[in-house]
């Protein structure tokens, strides 16, 4: 993305860019609550839908809070050498103090610094929230709360710094000088590979849900899943076109690619289902939408229409097949965070190496090259593979360590009784839907 730190600009407000970035920030927040919450919430059984919604709300709460306190500073603080190749100083802009507009992410395009904070806050929130899909139905609520804070601090903020904050994997980092400037327009590595690998690590620590596989885990409300998928698509334009940081032709290219890659991914996912299972399903349509969105994210403005169509089309097939991995290898990635976000994120990140271009309104950072199929040779592909691999390993290892420590300290897994009897009731003392026989006895609230 061009929405990035450029030191020393005198700030001149551009109301149009500012309007677009505030709008984008709003609709990216919508991607977590309610979109992702409902996408996942509809997929779980009715006895744990509230817990799923809650985990997403919690991600917005805790990560939102620490982002303003020190997360922005840790991600986008100015130091980028030595250890600060990996994370910036969390106290430089503690509570956003001293963050003047000329030091902001949008200084070069007239966007106030706090708008940059706002936009990026929603990325931190959704990355953490994505993980909930893998661990659905069995994690202790308090452990989830702790995890969100620790993981954002130790994994997300650093990776954001490395890729977007001028650090290790950025267009000015070592991979760029060695091979080519890596391209991650809107978060294929920082968001999707990151969350996907983390989901996998947690799943291995948590173990399978009782009764999986073989038990009845069908989605309790498919319209909720469709609602979530649709709102994810809608909000994703803020995610991808917003990542340009300005309202211009490059943002428009990201818009178009986000639209068409998703449309095609939905169609190829459905086609894959039709061929394999004999039916095209609504869950498949919703899943195809998300797979397409994930895969086009890193490439959003870095390919032309044909590149977007190819990436979307390939991602639809690849992810539709990848959701079978968990059955083959026996890890209970409940709602397919690995199959969709990890695999989709890798797919998009790597395919950039084939399709990157700077024609037809497409854009990539200085130091990047055209893809293999667009005459730029193999260098960009290698850079993309290196970055993807680094992100997988970085996120998986750190997450495993964090999860392991939490497991030792407070435990990760809910009691079997709570899991079987219904998390909503056991953990939150609630049930999602009305039923016969509720009697209120005690109405005095201790105030």
């Amino acid at each position: 993305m061009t929405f990035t730190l450029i030191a020393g600009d005198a700030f001149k407000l551009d109301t149009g860019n500012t309007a677009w970035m505030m709008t984008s920030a709003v609709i990216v927040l919508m991607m977590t609550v309610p979109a992702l919450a409902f996408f996942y919430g509809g997929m779980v059984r009715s006895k744990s839908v509230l817990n799923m919604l809650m985990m997403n709300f919690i991600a917005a709460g805790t990560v939102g809070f620490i982002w303003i306190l020190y997360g922005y500073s840790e991600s986008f603080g100015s130091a980028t050498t030595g250890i600060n190749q990996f994370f910036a100083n969390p106290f430089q802009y503690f509570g956003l103090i001293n963050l003047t507009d000329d030091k902001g992410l949008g200084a070069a395009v007239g966007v106030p610094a706090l708008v940059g904070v706002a936009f990026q806050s929603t990325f931190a929130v959704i990355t953490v929230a994505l993980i909930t899909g893998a661990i659905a139905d069995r994690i202790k609520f308090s452990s989830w709360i702790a995890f969100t804070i620790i993981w954002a601090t130790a994994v997300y903020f650093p990776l954001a710094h490395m890729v977007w904050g001028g650090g290790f994997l950025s267009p000015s980092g070592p991979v760029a000088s060695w091979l080519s400037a890596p391209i991650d327009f809107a978060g294929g590595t920082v968001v999707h590979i990151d969350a996907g690998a983390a989901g996998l690590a947690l799943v291995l620590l948590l173990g399978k849900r009782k009764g999986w596989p073989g038990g009845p885990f069908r989605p309790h409300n498919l319209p909720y899943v469709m609602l979530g998928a649709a709102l994810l698509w809608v909000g994703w334009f803020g995610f991808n076109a917003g990542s340009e940081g300005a309202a211009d032709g490059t943002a428009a290219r990201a818009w178009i690619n986000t639209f068409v890659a998703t449309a095609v991914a939905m169609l190829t996912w459905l086609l894959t289902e039709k061929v394999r299972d004999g039916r095209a399903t609504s869950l498949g349509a919703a899943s195809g939408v998300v797979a397409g969105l994930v895969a086009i994210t890193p490439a959003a403005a870095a390919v032309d229409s044909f590149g977007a169509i190819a990436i979307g089309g390939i991602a639809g097939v690849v992810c539709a097949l990848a959701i079978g991995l968990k059955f083959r290898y026996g890890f209970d990635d409940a709602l397919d965070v690995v199959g969709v976000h990890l695999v989709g994120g890798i797919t998009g990140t790597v395919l950039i190496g084939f399709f990157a271009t700077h024609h037809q309104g497409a854009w990539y950072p200085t130091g990047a090259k055209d893809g293999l199929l667009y005459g730029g040779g193999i260098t960009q592909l290698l850079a993309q593979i290196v970055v993807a691999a680094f992100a997988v390993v970085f996120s998986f290892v750190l997450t495993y360590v964090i999860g392991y420590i939490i497991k030792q300290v407070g435990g990760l897994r809910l009691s079997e009784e709570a899991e079987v009897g219904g998390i909503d009731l056991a953990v939150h003392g609630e049930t999602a839907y009305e039923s016969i026989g509720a009697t209120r006895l005690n109405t005095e609230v201790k105030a």
Partner: protein
Amino acid sequence: MKLVTGVIQPHRLDDVKSALEAAGVRGMTVSEASGYGRQRGHTEVYRGAEYTVDLVPKVRIEALVDDADAPAVTDALVKAAQTGKIGDGKVWITPVDDVIRVRTGERGPGAL
């Protein structure tokens, strides 16, 4: 008195209701049920995982009737529910010791 219970195809409910009325039944109780029998269930596929659903939606109808009316009511029920396809359901008759109308406390056939 007798209790005539029928487990039928949901889309026959309307006709059965009319038929029972025509047969002089003044009230009945209806509830949702699922059945298992010769009629095959179906499979559903979610992200490639196949689920077998072997329960088929049915509707249960219960009518309390006088001993004398039981055969006629049963016949009416069966006839109205019949489509001739597997899964049409069952009707059964059980003895009832007593019936009370809650509103009035009346007992016996007069309470029907």
